[in-house]
């Protein structure tokens, strides 16, 4: 049994080395996805702006300081490209930036004299999201500014947070991306390794050895595990560099959960391979499954708060019913050091059951196909 498994692994690794193009593509796709995501995720935290400052004095200085300082755990709220008013106008008018904040000359005088000062925020409103984000950020700066003015009628906020600190969106998403790449790689590699035996028409002969196909499946899983580990080794530093993911916090439990996701992906891969027996449809289907897991399961704890009504609520209910979302949150909380949580037996068992089900269907399908090999 063991030597048969090893024979499969050796052979498949040799084939991968001989024709590496496909494996390289399947390694690169999750990496590119992470890079793309890493490049756009800043859009939700930091917005570029130019400031035309015509005013001078202590109030102005303090306000400009606040504009520069306001931030979330993800980083500054504003990326101030310039404070030079001439350059600011030029950049805004040439459409090199979508927002311009004008601090008028009267700003300092008015505040000094106890009068009301007015700012002007010019926005290229081609996307309502951007308009809203600039407006809210400037409001935040104003709120912070007034905090320090000690006005009697200033309304303060007391916040009671559920978790001791906010999880930065970057690392919140990173956990999802990590799961995405584990799932995608394990699914694509197991699926294509299986399908290839049919594409090269070698499956029948393997079945006709006294060893049967159990060593075949286990062998494919081992090869896929090696590929998935290689992929994870590439993904983790990328998550660390691009999104500041705290890879040092990953403990044994996290690795156990990742292994569970590997089994899930591989079981789905075996089933896809057995069902289609062709490489071509396996890749897009795996991408769809892994993407859905990323968008629905990995974002479940976020979506939960705004999924009230419509398609979003429907999707959320689907995600909350799935074991993945629970496990991904466990990984997240462990990595963020929010809670020290023991293994979640319920979700793990549910996941194991799911893996078992996928495999059973695959085995059933394999057995059934054997008796219908007429004329081949």
């Amino acid at each position, binding site marked *: 049994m063991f030597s048969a498994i090893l024979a499969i692994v050796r052979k498949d690794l040799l084939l991968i080395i001989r024709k590496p193009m496909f494996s390289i593509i399947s390694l690169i796709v999750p990496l590119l996805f992470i890079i793309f995501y890493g490049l756009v995720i800043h859009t*939700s*935290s930091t917005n570029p702006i130019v400031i035309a400052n015509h005013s001078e004095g202590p109030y102005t200085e303090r306000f400009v300081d606040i504009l520069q300082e306001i931030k979330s755990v993800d980083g500054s709220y504003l990326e101030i490209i310039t404070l030079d008013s001439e350059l600011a106008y030029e950049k805004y008018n040439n459409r090199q930036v979508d927002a311009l904040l004008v601090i008028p000359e009267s700003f300092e005088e008015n505040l000094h004299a106890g009068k009301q000062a007015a700012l002007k925020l010019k926005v290229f409103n081609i*996307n309502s999201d951007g308009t809203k984000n600039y407006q809210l950020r400037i409001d935040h700066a104003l709120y912070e500014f007034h905090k320090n003015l000690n006005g*009697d009628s200033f*309304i303060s906020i*007391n*916040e009671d947070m559920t978790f001791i600190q906010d999880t930065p969106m970057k690392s919140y998403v990173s956990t999802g991306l990590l799961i995405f790449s584990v799932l995608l790689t394990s699914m694509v590699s197991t699926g294509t390794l299986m399908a290839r035996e049919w594409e090269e028409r070698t499956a029948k002969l393997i079945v006709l050895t006294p060893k049967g196909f159990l060593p075949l499946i286990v062998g494919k899983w081992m090869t896929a595990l090696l590929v998935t580990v290689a992929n994870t080794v590439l993904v983790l530093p990328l998550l660390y560099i691009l999104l500041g993911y705290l890879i040092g916090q990953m403990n044994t439990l996290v690795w156990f959960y990742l292994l569970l996701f590997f089994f899930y992906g591989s079981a789905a891969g075996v089933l896809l391979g057995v069902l289609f027996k062709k490489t*071509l449809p396996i890749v897009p289907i795996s991408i769809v499954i892994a993407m859905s897991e990323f968008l629905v399961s990995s974002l479940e704890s976020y979506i939960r708060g705004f999924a009230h009504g419509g398609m979003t609520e429907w999707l959320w209910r689907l995600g909350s019913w799935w074991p993945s979302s629970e496990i991904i949150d466990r990984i997240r909380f462990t990595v963020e050091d929010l809670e020290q949580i023991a293994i979640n037996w319920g979700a793990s068992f549910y996941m194991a059951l799911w893996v078992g089900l996928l495999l059973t269907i695959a085995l059933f399908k394999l057995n059934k196909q054997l008796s219908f090999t007429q004329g081949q």
Partner: protein
Amino acid sequence: MKKWQAILAVHNRNMKILTRQKQMLIQPIIVPLVLLFLMVVVFGGGGDDWPVAIVNESNSLESQELMEAFKDSESNITPYFDFIEMNSYEAKKKGSEGRLHLFIKLPADFVENKNIELKTYNINSDAMKNVRLRVEHTLNDYMEKQGALKVTSQQVTAQPNDVWRSAFYGGSSVLLTLFLGSMIIAANLHAFDYENRTIKEITLTPTGSIMAGFGIILTSVFVSLILSLIPLTLSILFLHFDFYFYNTLLVYLSIVPILIGCAGIGLFLGAYFKQYRVLQPLIILIGIGTYIIGGGFAGVNMLMPLAREIADIWVFSVIFEWFNPVLHNFATSFSFSQCTFIFLAGVLGFLLTFIAYRFQIRKSIFGGQ
């Protein structure tokens, strides 16, 4: 005359292939639509209203006014809040379970202490930014009304109405269908010739293979123009997309040379890689990558510095950066330099066709097939 006949013959053949080999059309239809669907669902295609719980425990005129301020608080497109829960017990429960991110309480001593209480389910910074900043925005509004705000801000927008985020995604999806469509259809048709070994037959006709290339360009541009009507219609119907006839016509006419360029690139890639299984992921990746960092997901100006620099080098970003403003009526014409670039893109398309077929012929003669 003969040449036109040959191009049209190839075009007719291509149209038959495309209608019979439906999988060749699926990608340029599905990829932009799936991307559009995901963006709308995940990044909030609806308005800016955030579901929250709010409870007023203070029996005062002031707290009543603040409640009104919360109700009236709005972005340029919709209210900022959607009050899902007003019952204190339920609000607490939903807040701690994460079913709501924010529970706002105006406490009994609101008038004396000038303080409100927030209970947040701070699952991540993005949710918290959204709820906290909305609250501060509302408090500013309230204080302004009370005459307590020393500094106010007035927003001046480039156009009277904001383009809804969903409409922006919709417009980008139209542009993505156009350029991804023409590129991938050209590549697929070329690969079809290769995989079915009809390339030799075409090479040996007296009119020459280059006419087949022009036929493929014609088909690709024509089909992608038609396919793009799908996301356009969906955007108009469901995504708050304001349709400007003149602008849309201008976009459709002036993008043709760029589509010729893209089809030329598709042909070139087709000649180089030959097989569907390499071509398709490659071109889809180019398409999605351009969509994400080239101004499809959000204008390049909104991206982080590194992404902006990449977008500056990545020429495909002009498709979103130049055509989206026209589509949404932020511009009604193209500058001279833009026109020149667009013209050159078309020339490049023809040039690449020549190169692709040169390459092809040399390969197939030495390939011995």
